[in-house]
């Protein structure tokens, strides 16, 4: 059975505390509900949730949509944004989780990566060191979301094929974003192919793509 592994890197630094993280949780919940309504996603999508603040941790290891439950997410009061460390953890997880096809094993679909941050990596050097590592992992698509005005999209562009901006960090905007993510995952399911890029649906107006 082919799985579509989907990795989420979620900024949980102090600035996400309060409404932003609550909105993100509601957004995640909607996304999961949406995926549960998509038969392909319900059968194939597996989600892994990694958060990063002063440390990067795997909040939910790769879990099927069927059994996935939103975990408790509690940002600390303040502190750095260790996105670099998160990339390191991500690579480890992908190496351990994602099945690569061979004669004996059926490969998973190419994994997808979604990153959401409202700041910029505090460990910039580690971040840059890990970018080539992430790119080796064969992601079908890497989408980064710069949430709010303080998010630094230029760093994200070094990593992600698609960078989108959320001008505000309120519930409806996050909701739109996660719905788009949900649609992207569903569509990613459909469009996976050999040498081609995954085709994603156009984002809603609240989710502004960064033109490079």
């Amino acid at each position: 059975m082919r799985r579509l592994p989907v990795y989420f890197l979620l900024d949980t630094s102090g600035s996400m505390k309060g409404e932003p993280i609550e909105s993100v949780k509601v957004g995640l919940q909607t996304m999961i509900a949406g995926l549960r309504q998509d038969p392909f996603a319900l059968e194939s999508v597996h989600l892994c949730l990694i958060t990063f603040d002063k440390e990067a941790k795997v909040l939910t290891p790769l879990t099927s949509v069927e059994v996935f439950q939103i975990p408790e997410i509690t940002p600390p009061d303040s502190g750095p944004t260790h996105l670099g460390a998160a990339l390191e953890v991500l690579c480890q997880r992908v190496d351990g989780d994602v099945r690569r096809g061979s004669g004996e094993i059926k490969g998973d679909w190419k994994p997808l990566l979604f990153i959401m941050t409202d700041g910029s990596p505090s460990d910039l050097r580690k971040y840059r060191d890990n970018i080539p590592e992430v790119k080796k992992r064969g992601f079908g698509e890497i989408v980064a979301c710069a949430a709010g005005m303080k998010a630094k999209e230029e760093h994200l562009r070094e990593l992600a094929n698609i960078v989108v901006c959320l001008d505000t960090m309120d519930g409806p905007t996050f909701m739109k974003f996660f719905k788009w993510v949900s649609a992207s995952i569903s569509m990613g399911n459909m469009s996976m192919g050999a040498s081609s890029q995954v085709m994603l649906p156009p984002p809603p107006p609240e989710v502004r793509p960064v033109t490079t």
Partner: protein
Amino acid sequence: MTERNCQTEFRNAVWRVIRDFCLTGEYEHLREEFSRSGKLAGHIDELHLRVREMRANLDGAPVPEEHAGDSQAENSRSGASPRVPSEDDPIRTERVQRRKKADLETDRSSSHVADANESGSEPAGAADQKERKATIQEAGKGIEAASAGIASDGDGRDSSKDESAPIAVGMEGKGQEPTHRVRNESQEEGASGAEDKLTIPGQTRRTGDVANQSLSDRDVDEAKHAAAGLIGQRTGPPDHAADASRKGRAVAVSGKSGKSDPSPTSGDATKRSEPGQPEEQGEPATGERGAAHRRAGAPAVVEKGQAVVKPTAAAVVRKSIRLSNSTVGKDYEAKIPEEVMPARDLLECRVAGLEDTGLEFDVTSRSLRGKPLKAGEFAFVLKFRQSTQIDPKRFIERELLLTVNADPRSLWKNLPSDSNELYWKPDSHSDALCKDRRLIAASQRGRSHANVGSCRDDDFQIRYVEEGRWYLVAVADGAGYAKYSRKGSEIACRVVLNTVMTQIDSLFNDELAATLAALRRAEDSSGRKKVGDALYTLLGGAAHAAMKAIQEESKTQAAAIKDYATTLLVVVAKKYDFGWFIGAFWVGDGGIGIYRKGKSVRLLGVPDGGEFAGQTRFLTMPEIWEAKELFRRLRFEIVDDFTAVVLMTDGVSDPKFGPESELMNLEKWDRLWTEVGEAAGLSDGSEGRSQDLLRWLDFWAPGEHDDRTIAILC
């Protein structure tokens, strides 16, 4: 001041304190107000301290998980008072509050506070909105924290056991949970009467306080109701879901979770706290994550009539426990966690609201089991009594939250494709011809396409050349991502067989037949090269012609050739007097096998698998046209006989065989043959029914919903 007036004033003051605490966290000025009545001044100080404790307590535990297993949390469960800081620690409290303010100021999202529900609020400047909003959340925490320390149905020891653990189970909700909790508990409390003792974190109250004596139980209850109502009003309108669940009925928040879209209309904390989506909000509070130990307060006994604190007890209500997810039609069992409902001292337990869900509660195993009938988000009510309760007749209630996934089969739609679309083709196709042997084939659009109404990408062609008595079969699988691959597969099958037909008799002439015969007798292995060359010219040439035809077609649409990407499997077969000659060309995934029932299977090539699913080679890729690479893709066999020669796209080979190495697995071939033979009437030597073969292609395999095409020579 008369006693009655005093009571009223006190009650009003209590409301204000709670409200202000919930809204602003500013209650300093209330002391002033209270100091006008000498009798009450002491109480407001008392309350003030309580509130500060709660806040400090909360702040001391920013990451609940960290405390999950620590000794303090354990202590708290056994009735000690762990994380309540000493009352005379104003510095810490101040610092905590200042830090909160600082956090709030960095909270850029606060601009979205909506005032829709603020009708009863204190007048406040716009600048205060941020803080008020966040404070509502804080207040929610505070109420919960307070409630953790207040046992509403037992003495201090037992209630701490009963209450502290489950309270924390549903602690997730922050700003929104208290809304319906408050409402629920106000009723619960009202029913249970005022005989309940109250506990307050960290302190034992003496009897004989002035206000206590002057307040009747009825007043206390009224105060609670009013306070509950106030908070409810502040945080959102009552909701039928909350109401219904309070009455002990299960509430399917939505039959379809897609419709239960919890999208907040304005995204502020106030709005989100509407109890319309209790499941959504309370989601992660699972007992298994050790959440049961979080923020467990430390109760100590307080005499009844502590009206000052009691309204916050109204926040206790029904703690939510999220059970593991289930799926419609699948066996399900979930045990109520021991920390939620300890088996010891249990007198009675039941779950309300299971009607028509397909689930039942098994008392012996204390688990919910059955096969869910309907998908959606559900809330049931667990009720139980324990012998250790002060009032063992009273039920403790917990909310059980359950997600029921739909059966994926029920979610697949079958939308017809749009026949006006460029390169449209029918969603399914089948064909058969019966000569000495039968040639039967079918192609079915996959569910992944049917679900969105897109076209089938697979294709096939079967031919019989009367003159040379050749059987010709081509099967192709258009790449899922390529927009015109449905045309690519069609062109590939058609052109490759057209080209083969024009050349096959001249290439496989009498001379080559003699070579084949010699090969068959194993007299002259040098003949292999000759046959290989002929096959190269025939099939390699035909495949190349197909690729060229696709290229030409792509120009008409100003598209790239990769937009027509397709695999291609071709078989040419002829019965000579020395046996069957079967030649094949294979690019991409899927499979071609010569099958002898119960005896052997020989593959006519190697599938082009990739590292990840869906990765393969296509006819349209330049790299396959190198001579060496092309040779590799050509195979032939000379066999005495066969049960079937089968060509299939990966839509069939993946679910039926799995990984590529399994394509050699004879057992799986036997199984496939039995299935197909029975379905399409091939086993009995009759003509075969291609329509039935088509129906068979609709078989169910989880996660395997690609187009399916199979062609059989048998």
